[in-house]
Structure formats: structure tokens, C-alpha cells
């Protein structure tokens, strides 16, 4: 059979990316070298891509000072319509360089080129376009027009450039300046974005990028010159930040972990529900805070749905993220792979049954086969803790009440999905779900006009849309 050995390799060319041996910190409109450096690697091959400067206290000070000066002298006083021009320009340059940025993101992150090309980059550009549109219309948004000041922003490694866009676009639209720290495993697209700021002739100091690990992030969020902190990442670190900021006048928004429930009722469009389940948990290797990592399926269709799901999983292409046919790429880091393995081992030990399609994983790099756990009890760790990997836990339910109860029985509250052909049930169930985002007959859909954020331990504050302006305006 012609596709027996899969599709012939169809790798995206890396020639569009001009990787440098080392990258500096972007402070006050220019790149400066740091005292120390750290390597960033390609998680699909474990090869070092570049050395990146590590920002210490001195560099963070300089970045915050540059942001302060730019805020007071240039960006804060600038009319919104003028700020918008810069944001539109940035959005257009992102579109022009989208292939390069998509390849770079795939190299540094390990996610498939299909996703960086078709999801990440279009959303990044759309986010800048969206907030560019708001810059001169803030008086109609309802949160005042006064910026907060200097924003310290710390973002995760799962959607490096997209999270940067979610943070920087609204901050700049509202007249704030920013110091942003990308994750230590995925700094490269943020540094490419710094070049784009130069290309767009954004005034010096409006955007500053400092690279480093947790310590750099701590220096940034605790810096007295920062007025507003925005963090996306783990609930554990979010808690530390909230603790550190308690008693200060700094504003804080947190977008943290999740253990999203994807609820499939017996009258669901089953084939599309299977797609939705796959998209909910295997999109981006499951490195998604709003992943649908718990599948709650009505018992009368459980067997049929799981049979379809397994058949569908057998068609997932796992491997080289640069191959245009790859569906599931590399896990972002050795540390994350170890965490996934540890949680999966706990699932097996506690009595849940794992299943994975047969798939040959590359020898080098960090890989984990898509996995489904059945026979899962609500008390199992795989049903309670965020795995942040391509691992799905399946539970069944009998009544809609039971589905809601199980879905809400988690400290998190970021996302949920409902699958049913009955519109009234969608509304009734959505109303009872304690989740910031509820998708109906779809999952993991994002749009810059739609607010995103969590309940409970999934954080507070909203990003995206009009609501996303609130965090960056003084009367918000």
C-alpha cells in the first residue's frame, strides 16, 4: 500500500532563518551582551542553536530604567493614533517575516511547522492588528485612557511568540512600555521580535527583552520600577509571584495551569468530537494550559468514541517538527519530558490503563508518544494534575449533572469543552462550568477579539479583546 511507510519526508527549508551564534539582550533599542550566557537547544535534535545572554540584576535594572524613560518621555505621551501606526507596522512585518518566524519557532520549541505556520504566526499578527485598532479608541473601552506605566512580563515556552503578542500588543496599545522575559528554553523568536521592533523604528526602550531563567524572572517581577506584572506559566510560580507582590502597589495578572474537561454527550457529532478531542490534547504536544486533558464521555457512547479515537490516533504523524506532515512534534525540554514520564508512570502504578498508537520515535531529542489513559479514577494523579504533555485521561459519566460535577472537581478552571447537537444543553451546561473559556463543538480555538483567562487556581485577569485592555489601563 502506497502510504504504508507514511508519507515521504516533506521538510520545510531552514534557509529562511539566519541563526546567529549568540544573541544579546535587547535594552533601550539596542542589543547588549550579558556577562554570562546559556545555550538554547533544538528539542528535536538536542543540538545547540545559539548562546543567549543571561540577564542579571544590572541588566534588568537597565531594561526597567530604559522602559521608564521611554514611558515618560515618548510612549506614554504619544497620541493613541500614533502608537497604532507602530503596532500596525509591527503586525505587517510579522506577516512579511512569518515563514522565517515559523521555522525559528519550530526549531527552538519543537512544535510542528504546520502549527507555527497555520496557527501561531497568523494569530500573532492578528493580535497586533487587533490591538493596533484599539490604540486610538481606548475611551470607548470603558477602562479609561491612562496607562499603568512599565510592565514586567514573563511568558512560557509553549507558544513563545504568541504569548509575547498577547502580552506586548495590549500593553503597547494602552501606552505602557514593557520589559519582557521569554522562557529560557525558547528565547529566539522574542529576540527576532526585538529585531522587528528595530525594523519598525519603534522608539528605543518601549520594548525591552531580557533573557534568562527563573532568577531573571524573579528580578524582573520584584523590581521596584515595575508598575504592572503579567505572568503566564505554572500555578506554582504564579503563586510565588502573587506572594512576592502582596503588599506592593503593583498590579498583577496571572494565566496559569489547567486541567480542562472535554465533555462528550451521547448525541454529539461523534466524528467531529473525536477531532476535537485530538485537537484538545495533542495540539502542540499537549503543551497547552487550556488543553482538554480530561475527556468526560457519556457511558452510552464511550466505547464507540474510544474506538474512533484510537483509530484516529493511529493516523497521527509523530516526528520531525520541520516536516510539513508532522502532527505531533518534540516535547520542549528534557525536564518537561521527565515530568510527563513521571506522571504517566504514576498513572500506570495507580491502575489506569495507558494506550498509544504504534509510532517510531526518533532516537535523539525529547519525544513522547500520544497516550490515552482509560480506567481512570477521579483520584488518580493523571486525572488531577496538569501533565502538560500528549496524555489524555478518560472518565465516563451517566447524567449531565455528573458531567458538570466531575468537570468542576478540580482546583483549576481555565477551559472546558461541550459536545452535543442540542443547543439548549450547550447553554445549560456552559452556565454551570467553572471555566474561563467554554468551547461548544470545538476546542482550542483562539481569536484576538475573544477574552481568555481563568477561574480559581488557573489565574486572574483576561487577555484578548476589549477585556484584555483592562490589565494595562490605570482605571481598569
Amino acid at each position: 500500500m502506497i502510504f504504508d511507510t507514511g508519507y515521504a519526508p516533506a521538510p520545510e527549508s531552514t534557509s529562511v532563518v539566519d541563526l546567529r551564534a549568540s544573541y544579546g539582550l535587547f535594552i533601550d533599542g539596542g542589543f547588549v551582551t550579558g556577562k554570562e550566557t546559556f545555550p538554547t537547544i533544538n528539542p528535536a535534535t538536542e543540538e545547540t542553536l545559539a548562546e543567549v545572554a543571561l540577564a542579571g540584576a544590572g541588566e534588568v535594572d537597565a531594561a526597567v530604567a530604559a522602559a521608564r524613560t521611554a514611558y515618560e518621555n515618548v510612549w506614554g505621551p504619544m497620541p493613541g493614533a500614533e502608537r497604532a501606526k507602530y503596532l500596525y507596522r509591527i503586525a505587517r512585518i510579522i506577516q512579511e517575516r512569518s515563514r522565517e518566524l515559523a521555522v525559528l519557532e519550530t526549531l527552538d520549541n519543537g512544535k510542528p511547522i504546520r502549527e507555527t505556520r497555520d496557527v501561531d504566526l497568523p494569530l500573532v499578527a492578528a493580535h497586533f492588528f487587533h490591538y493596533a485598532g484599539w490604540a486610538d479608541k481606548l475611551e470607548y473601552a470603558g477602562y479609561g485612557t491612562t496607562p499603568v506605566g512599565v510592565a514586567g512580563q514573563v511568558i512560557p515556552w509553549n507558544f513563545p511568540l504568541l504569548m509575547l503578542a498577547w502580552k506586548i500588543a495590549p500593553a503597547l496599545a494602552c501606552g505602557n512600555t514593557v520589559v519582557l522575559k521569554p522562557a529560557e528554553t525558547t528565547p529566539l523568536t522574542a529576540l527576532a521580535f526585538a529585531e522587528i521592533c528595530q525594523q519598525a523604528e519603534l522608539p528605543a526602550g518601549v520594548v525591552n527583552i531580557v533573557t534568562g531563567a527563573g532568577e531573571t524572572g524573579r528580578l524582573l517581577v520584584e523590581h521596584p520600577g515595575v508598575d504592572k506584572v503579567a505572568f503566564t506559566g505554572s500555578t506554582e510560580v504564579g503563586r510565588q509571584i502573587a506572594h512576592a507582590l502582596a503588599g506592593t502597589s503593583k498590579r498583577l495578572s496571572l494565566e496559569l495551569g489547567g486541567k480542562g474537561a472535554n465533555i462528550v454527550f451521547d448525541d454529539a457529532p461523534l466524528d467531529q468530537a473525536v477531532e476535537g478531542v485530538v485537537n484538545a490534547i495533542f495540539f502542540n504536544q499537549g503543551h497547552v494550559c487550556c488543553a482538554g486533558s480530561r475527556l468526560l464521555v457519556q457511558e452510552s457512547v464511550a466505547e464507540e468514541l474510544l474506538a474512533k479515537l484510537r483509530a484516529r490516533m493511529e493516523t497521527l504523524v509523530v516526528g520531525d517538527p520541520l516536516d510539513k506532515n508532522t502532527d505531533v512534534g518534540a516535547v520542549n525540554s528534557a525536564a518537561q519530558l521527565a515530568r510527563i514520564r513521571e506522571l504517566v508512570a504514576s498513572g500506570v502504578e495507580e491502575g489506569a490503563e495507558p494506550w498509544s498508537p504504534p509510532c517510531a520515535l526518533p532516537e535523539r531529542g525529547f519525544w513522547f508518544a500520544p497516550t490515552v489513559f482509560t480506567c481512570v479514577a477521579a483520584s488518580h494523579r493523571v486525572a488531577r494534575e496538569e501533565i502538560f504533555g500528549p496524555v489524555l485521561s478518560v472518565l465516563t459519566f451517566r447524567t449531565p449533572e455528573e458531567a458538570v460535577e466531575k468537570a468542576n472537581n478540580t482546583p483549576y478552571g481555565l477551559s472546558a469543552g461541550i459536545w452535543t447537537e442540542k443547543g439548549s444543553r450547550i447553554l445549560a451546561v456552559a452556565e454551570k462550568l467553572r471555566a474561563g473559556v467554554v468551547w461548544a463543538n470545538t476546542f482550542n480555538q483562539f481569536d484576538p477579539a475573544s477574552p481568555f483567562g481563568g477561574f480559581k487556581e488557573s489565574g486572574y485577569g483576561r487577555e484578548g479583546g476589549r477585556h484584555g485592555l483592562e490589565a494595562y489601563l490605570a482605571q481598569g
Partner: protein
Amino acid sequence: MTDAVAVTSTRELRGVLHGLPGVDEVGAKARAARLGTRSIKNDTKAAAIDLAISMVDLTTLEGADTPGKVRALCVKAVRTAPGAPTVGAVCVYPDLVKVAVEALAGSGVGIASVATAFPAGRAPLEVKLADTRRAVADGATEIDMVIDRGAFLTGDYGRVFDEITAVKEACGEAHLKVILETGELATYDNVRRASWLAMLAGADFIKTSTGKIQPAATPPVVLVMLQAVRDFQAEHGRVVGVKPAGGIRTTKDALKLLVQVNEVAGPRWLDPRLFRIGASSLLNDLLMQREKLATGVYSGPDYFTLD
């Protein structure tokens, strides 16, 4: 072999067909579009092009068709290109079946004839059956019938079912392809129900369209039909083929279809006995791409005969 299942009344059929899971339009379109982004290169592409050639139902269904045109088409069907397979079948109107039979003798290429008052299907049942019997008697090995869309859309499933079983009987040994004319069915739910109805009534193949109505074989329609044959096989054990027809003109379209077959129905359907593509101009594009892949250069459309 009795292919019909023991549900025949409209009421019973309604219970079965309306008990099928619904199709979410947005999701189905998104899935079909996603499958369309698969990148088929090199060896896979070469093999896929040859497979696609062997699946073509080389078709001419024009009022102006002549015996000469059908003969020319038959020559092309057998001698596609050096080293390339023959096509799956030649598809003609009933009155030209004899011409095709003569021209294709001993070639192994199937002779498909549309029947049952194609394309509208607006004729009394006796006429449709006579149409079918005559085509089979003249040597057609495959019959492409149209369903009564009016009866289907008014919910008279029993009537559609009975008509298909009657035509199936009239086919004898000839394979029956049932054309759903999805462009007139309005919803994907209906496409799924019509697919099941045809399969329950004994169809050997379910076919999207006559080619006379737009839209025809759109990717989401083919997706839903491939899901239907997969699910029908899982439930009833019988393997039914799928034939998209109408608007499939390029190699890229054909490769996207093969990807769908592979990932939705499964590799078992990657077989001309279970998947056909109804087309006229597609073959030349496949041959042109085949040569491009083998030689590295495009020779241009003038080097491929218009038959």
C-alpha cells in the same frame, strides 16, 4: 450474496438514519481542510499518481457524445502512458455501452454506464429498470444510478430504498454505484443518511455527484462519505466503495482525495475496487505530473491528447 438489510419501511429507515450521529459542519470542513495540507512528495507522489490513474473512471457524459469520441476515450483508457496503469473504467451513456465494450475488449478496463434516467432520475421506475437492464445486457460491468432526491428530501426513505434494491437486482453481476447528488442534499447530515440508505439497500459504491450539479465532490462531502463506509463496514461487515465525481481536475485534488481515503476510511480503501474518481480532464493532469516527476520537466498540455 444478499446485501440488503432487513429494514425497509420508511418508519424503520427513519429510525436508523436519524439515529446516526450528526455531522458538525464547521468541524467537518476544518478536518477536510486540514487533510488538504498534507504534503505528498517524491516516491509517495509517484506511487499516488499511478494509483490515482488506476482509479479514474474516465467519463464522457455529453449530449454531443459520438461513437468516435467514446472509441478515442477507450484507447486513452488502456494506453494512458508508457509504464502507467490503465484507468479503472470508462463511463458513458447507455446507448454507447456497446461501442465501449468493443473498444475495451480484453483490456480489463471496466465499462460503466449511467442509468436510471441520469442525471435527474425523473422517470417511472419501469423505465429506470429497463434503462439499467439494457445497459447491462449491452455489456456494462458497472452501473451508476441516481437516487430520487425528491423522495429522499421529503423523507420517503422507503421509496428510495426500494428503488435502489430494484436497480441492484436489475444489475445482476454488474456493480452498482449509487449517486447521491450531494449538491442537492443541502446538509452533511443528509449526505451521511443518504450514504447509509444506499449501503443498506445494497450499493456496491456510493458516489457523490452526477457532475451536472454544483457543488459536487467537495472535500467535506467526501470526508463524510468515507466515514460512512468505514462505519458501515464496522457495523455490518460489508465493504462499500466511494466514488467522488465532479470538479476533480488536478493531480493535487486527486492526491488530497487519496490522503482522505488513507486517513479517514483507511488504507484498505486505497484500491481501485473500492475507490474511484469520476473525471474527464483529470487524467491528462495526472499524466503530465507523472512525466514531470519522472523527467524533471514539464512538457506542456499540447503533448497530451484531448480525447
